[in-house]
């Protein structure tokens, strides 16, 4: 998987964007899902809800703990990954792919530049 178009936050979210589209996909990293353990429920923001970079937009309930889901960038919620309602374990099994959480319509593309690239994030979690 290429991480060229993926940016990371210090809260362990990732955001994948595409050239020519203002809709980005958001999830949590493999590091975050490993720390959380088995996810049993994701409480999503409403579709159409405005979210602000760095602010909580949902919660992730794991067996042992609960974590806030922070918006990595500002925007409007376009879609939630409702497949997780039946299969929340996808967040643990496939955090970068099938376990994505929400799609956001970006309100300020420049916010992406403030986030970390893969190599920087790997350094943060001690993976390099």
């Amino acid at each position, binding site marked *: 998987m290429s991480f060229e178009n993926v940016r990371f936050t210090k809260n362990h979210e990732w955001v994948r964007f595409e050239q020519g589209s203002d809709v980005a996909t958001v999830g949590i990293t493999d590091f975050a899902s490993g720390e959380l*353990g088995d996810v*049993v*429920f994701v*409480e999503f923001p409403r579709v159409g809800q405005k979210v602000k970079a760095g602010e909580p937009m949902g*919660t992730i*309930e794991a*067996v*042992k703990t*609960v974590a806030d889901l922070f918006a990595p960038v500002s925007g409007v919620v376009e879609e939630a990954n409702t497949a997780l309602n039946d299969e929340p374990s996808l967040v*643990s099994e496939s955090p970068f792919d099938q376990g994505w959480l929400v799609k956001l319509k970006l309100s300020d593309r420049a916010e992406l530049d403030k986030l970390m690239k893969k190599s920087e994030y790997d350094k943060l979690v001690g993976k390099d």
Partner: protein
Amino acid sequence: MSDAVSDTKKTPLTFIHQSLGAKMVEFAGFLMPVSYGSILDEHRAVRERAGIFDVSHMGEFLVTGPRAREFVNEVITNDCSKLAPGALQYSVMCREDGTTVDDLLVFVLGEERVLLVVNAANIDKDFDHVCTFDKHGVKVENVSDSWALLAVQGPMTREILKACPIFRSVKAQLDETAYYKGFSFAYEGDEVLVSRTGYTGELGFEIFIPPPHAPVFWERIVEAGSSHGIIPIGLGARDTLRFEASYCLYGHELDDTTSPLEAGLNWAVKLNKPSFRGIEALRREKEAGSPRTLVGLDLEGRNIARPGYRVIKDGADAGKVTSGAFSPTLQKSLCMALIDRGAKDASTEYKIVIREKQAAAGVTALPFYKSRAK
């Protein structure tokens, strides 16, 4: 974290958990496995097949002497006076004011020999407490470091142990031993204790082993169980399993401020006994009604009610959550809560404050989960 870990005690099996790549945490002063992979997979393995747990952190006190059982009977709320050797009993020990020092298992090993199995976090507190009683010539020893403890739990447990070479000489006992009964046998000249008990709500045995033999027991049982799908289980699934079976966990449903009557353990409190520590206070509580009652609640939605969350009724505080989980077996969000008397009498519907929201929660019978055969 690393500092804390360096001070913690290890069990005779810690090196095995580490070699299996378990996520390790400090629990009650011991370095213990939380899980070896997925807590949910481990939970399901015990419900459907079998799991093996290292619970060597549990404490053991040995009470010996002609009046051993009398002595224990003064300490505990349950009545062990009529237990024959080879019988076990769940009980609680209380202070004079009826609050709970700990919950424990009483294992009658012989006419003059009783083993008390206590929670790891309470070993020192419990031993101090037990030492405040008149000894009447009995000897009480903290033998916690002399016993490793394995729990083998799940519907396939009996077949697995019978297939294990270590248990070849006691196959018949494995078949015949009833729930809350036990036996002992010699392994390389050392005493091993086996009880048909557990903390999961499934068929299962707990095996008390001299520590040097613990690794070979673990390995042989895992080998014998591999074709039955046995896997090692950490403390994470131990908690979700006991939660579904609605067993009290000290520090949650029971603690230094809770009475066993509040926690719904009336069946383990024998108020018709001539005496035990706390009997007067508990008789008064029974007469007057307990200030709080433990209930099971079934939540709307899938958020988890965590320990300490507020339970409210008509906007006013009605109690606190003691344990909660999204039940892997029943596939719903459940919790146990201690509800104040006034609120309990009035209602079967509550709300639980989960962060900034309120989740509706209806009273549901305990235990949440009951297996066909324990």
